[in-house]
């Protein structure tokens, strides 16, 4: 589900960076308030652990395929949502740098799609309420499956939404969503089962390691909901709304748009619908480099045949120059050595 840089427009990438950075700054503040110096090394080692477990294959009974562990849910059940979220940021960044899983520019999106939902929605809205009166096998199973399925649905829906708003694909939004959601429904279910198995083991061996068990909601000072907290609450509500919409979208993929006419491309591209229009409007309004979109013109910028030939010539010259540069540089080096 990692998004690539190519799938996001700068405005979308920027927006998601800002949202993720907001959630991160709240988390940093919370972790700092806990004032537990041990938390940092535990976060680091657990992050590496989750990163490594993603490489294990778990056989899914009755099928030939295999599944993986759900990092966000796992980490927040062990560390709490805030430390879990910061750890996931680390995991996603290292994954992106070392293995090109996701992209540098899309990192904001990936943090939001995977870490935000997994940690905040998963831990605060699902895990903690269920574990309020203590944990049990059944409760852990329920929370893990529910958490993984729901947060993955939200994540998948966000991927579709971000790609659409970026104006990358001609695929109708509904088709995109109808493909993404069911796949991730299955993935979420399996990840939930695997995550539950591990957490049940922890619960039985070292129950004190699980976060938020037997904890009631943290008392909120009345009438003193800070600006940051308000934003978090709003963000969570928005995420929930998105999740519900996505559930509907996957349950009832718009029949009209599935029709052959659509696939044949005879119908209008307005399939993407209102969401796309609004999105373009938002993008136009917020775009950092506003004057590139060729709005009503039919002639595309930079798509003439001669232009492409010219471009190739430039590239060829550069390649030649680079090799020449390298040649002379190494020659100089040899001379220095000699």
């Amino acid at each position, binding site marked *: 589900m990692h998004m690539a840089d190519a799938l996001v427009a700068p405005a979308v990438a920027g927006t998601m960076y800002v949202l993720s950075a907001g959630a991160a700054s709240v988390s940093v503040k919370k972790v700092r308030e806990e004032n537990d110096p041990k938390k940092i*090394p535990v976060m680091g080692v657990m992050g590496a652990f989750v990163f490594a477990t993603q*490489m294990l294959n778990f056989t899914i009974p009755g099928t030939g395929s295999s599944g993986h562990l759900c990092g966000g849910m796992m980490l927040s059940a062990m560390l709490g949502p805030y430390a879990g979220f910061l750890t996931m940021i680390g995991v996603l960044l290292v994954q992106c740098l070392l293995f*090109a899983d996701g*992209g540098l520019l899309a990192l904001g999106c990936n943090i939001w799609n995977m870490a935000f939902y997994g940690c905040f929605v998963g831990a605060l809205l699902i895990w903690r309420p269920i574990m309020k009166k203590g944990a049990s096998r059944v409760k852990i199973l329920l929370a893990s499956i529910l958490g993984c399925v729901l947060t993955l649905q939200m994540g998948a829906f966000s991927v579709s939404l971000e790609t659409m708003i970026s104006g990358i694909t001609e695929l109708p939004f509904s088709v995109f969503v109808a493909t993404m959601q069911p796949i991730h429904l299955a993935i979420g279910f399996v990840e939930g089962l695997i995550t539950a198995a591990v957490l049940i083991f922890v619960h039985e061996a070292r129950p004190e390691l699980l976060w938020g068990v037997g904890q009631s909601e943290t008392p909120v000072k009345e009438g003193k909901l800070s600006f940051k907290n308000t934003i978090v609450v709003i963000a969570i509500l928005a995420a929930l709304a998105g999740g519900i919409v996505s559930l509907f979208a996957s349950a009832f993929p718009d029949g009209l748009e599935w029709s052959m006419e659509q696939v044949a491309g005879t119908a209008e591209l307005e399939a993407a619908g209102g969401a796309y229009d609004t999105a373009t409007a938002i993008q136009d309004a917020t775009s950092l480099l506003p004057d590139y979109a060729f709005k009503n013109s039919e002639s595309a910028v*930079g798509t003439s045949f001669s232009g492409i030939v010219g471009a190739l010539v430039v590239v060829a010259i550069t*390649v030649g120059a680079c090799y020449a*540069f390298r040649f002379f540089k190494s020659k100089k080096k040899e001379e220095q050595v000699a």
Partner: protein
Amino acid sequence: MSSIEKNIRELDKLQNLQQRSHWMNSLHPLGKLLLSIFYIFVTVSFDKYSLAPLIVMAIYPLFGFIVGELSFKEGIYRMRLILPLVIFVGIFNPFFDKRIILEVAGIGISGGVISMLTLMLKGFYSVLSAYILIATTSIDDICYALRILRVPKQIVIVIMLIYRYFGVMAAEADRITTAYKLRAPKQNGIHYKAWGTLVGQWLLRSMDRAEDVYESMLLRGFTGDFSMRKHKTAATDILYPAIWGLIFLVIRFFLIKIL
């Protein structure tokens, strides 16, 4: 070779590259990080039909790979993880967008084909440029740059630790799966009955390790922060990214009108 071993080898190769004595490696990490992000930013900002200027944008990854003496094969191999989604998103464009917007020798090429091509190019460029960054800059150096950018120390230290312990954990994962496979030769993954105990025990061991790591830090005066070695700044550290940045802007705003 298992996928875990492949990952470990990839990590090995990257670390070897980061240790080379090449002038690109010794550039200031902040400049390289910002340059990479800016390059990707400019690349994805091109319109989906702007094929010609996007082709010119290849000069940066080409320069990085040729002058930086990196292997194109390795760089392209790194596409494998993001490629499926990119292809899924782009492959349908030719079916939906059939307006002819370019004619080559009398053959019309539709907007969908062009937009699919630009999407693929964007995908390639971003992966290649990120590879140039990580092949010449260690994660520690990137963390140093992040600290300059005021990323909170809690996040940066966690990143450093994840990176340090990923290798250790991956080796453990490899041992665990090998030991498991040797006793369950007919399975291609871990049986569901072992999910909890196998990973759970590993998790508890990892928690114990975290405890040791914490104590080891504490005993050497850890008070919540890592002080880092400082990098000196030379003129090239500023000039190199600045010149490239300028070239990107020229392509983005001037060349686009000519081509």
